[in-house]
């Protein structure tokens, strides 16, 4: 993975720190860990989707876009959020169970797969 210049990764987490686990649900994670692949620096942005009444995935994806990430590691992703992520040309990888750090190492070793399928969401369109 040579082309890391200025590339940032977003990872949904519920706690700060590279040793914290990847959050199981993208839209409702407390923070996004934004990791700079070039400098190794991390910052945390709050996920406004976490407390949203509806459309949490869209809001969460907006936070990832606004944080300037070009990669997203997540265990899964809803259709609407995925549309935002894809429109922003952010590459989506399926995270493996474990910490943020382990996932970054896996990615750097070329061991993370692209997230190919997304789900219809958890609300089945109820309003």
């Amino acid at each position, binding site marked *: 993975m040579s082309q890391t210049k200025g590339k940032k990764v977003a990872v949904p987490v519920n706690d700060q720190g590279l040793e914290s686990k990847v959050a199981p649900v993208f839209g409702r994670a407390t923070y996004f860990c934004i990791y700079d692949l070039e400098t190794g620096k991390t910052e945390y942005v709050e996920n406004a989707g976490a407390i949203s*009444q509806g459309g949490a995935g869209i809001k969460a994806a907006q936070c990832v*876009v606004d944080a300037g990430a070009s990669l997203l590691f997540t265990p899964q992703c809803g259709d609407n959020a995925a549309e935002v992520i894809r429109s922003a040309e952010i590459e989506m990888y399926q995270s493996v169970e474990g910490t943020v750090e382990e996932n970054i190492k896996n990615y750097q070793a070329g061991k993370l797969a692209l997230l190919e399928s997304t789900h219809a969401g958890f609300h089945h369109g109820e309003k």
Partner: protein
Amino acid sequence: MRIAVLSGKGGAGKTLIAVNLAAAAGRSAYVDCDVEAPNGHLFFKPTHIKKSEVAIKVPILNPLLCNGCRACVDFCRFNALAYIKETVVVFNDVCHSCGGCVYVCPQNALSEREIPVGTIQSGFSKGVSVYTGELKIGMPSGVPIIKKLLDAKDLKQEVYTVVDCPPGSACTVMESIKDADYCVVVAEATAFGLHDMKMVLELVRLMGKPHGVILNKWIEGEASELTETCCREEEVKLLGKIPFDSTLGTLNSNGEIVARVDDAYRAMFSALFETIKEEVKG
């Protein structure tokens, strides 16, 4: 007088009871709000059908006018809009058609367009005005159709209106019972039916609706007893019990309205209707 019939569990007998209460009432209106699977019309076989479309409004962007201020994105509490690559993306299936984004846009870059979400139909069947809502396949919410159905001008003139609600206890059900004077909770005499009856009882209490229970598919046994005990303990009026009966089952599955073709059931549903009227009068 508006009577809503709801159940939580699907297949508990909402349509059976709603259709027969409306038929027993004589001059009345029956409104099928189960817009994902309306079937009351199969029993009433109404004539003089009038049909109209229901549409919802969703925002559409004029990208030439948008200056990227994000006022719309920040305003929408349902997050139906996102700002990506210097343009606004609209998620129609999350939009609640409030028009707020159009209102707050300082550039007048957003306007509203209509998209069809379903139909409403009205017809007539031996004294009963029959209203049916039907959601278009793939549309996310039946609420706009239910709103339009229950707001129909002709409906306001009816003395007795029976509303056949969707199953469950979600927004479509809340919309269906919103203006009801009384809620008839249909409980199926099974453990599953009891569980979902409790969910619906919680909802009608939350919405402050007077209510009572009809126990359907009643047979002697543990499940029926549990349901009756639950009604006693929670001080809910048991309006009546409908037996698990093959005559009823056969007529009903043949699309007949039992209160119109069977004397015993006509008497039963007339009595139920009278009981409910008394309850409403309090």
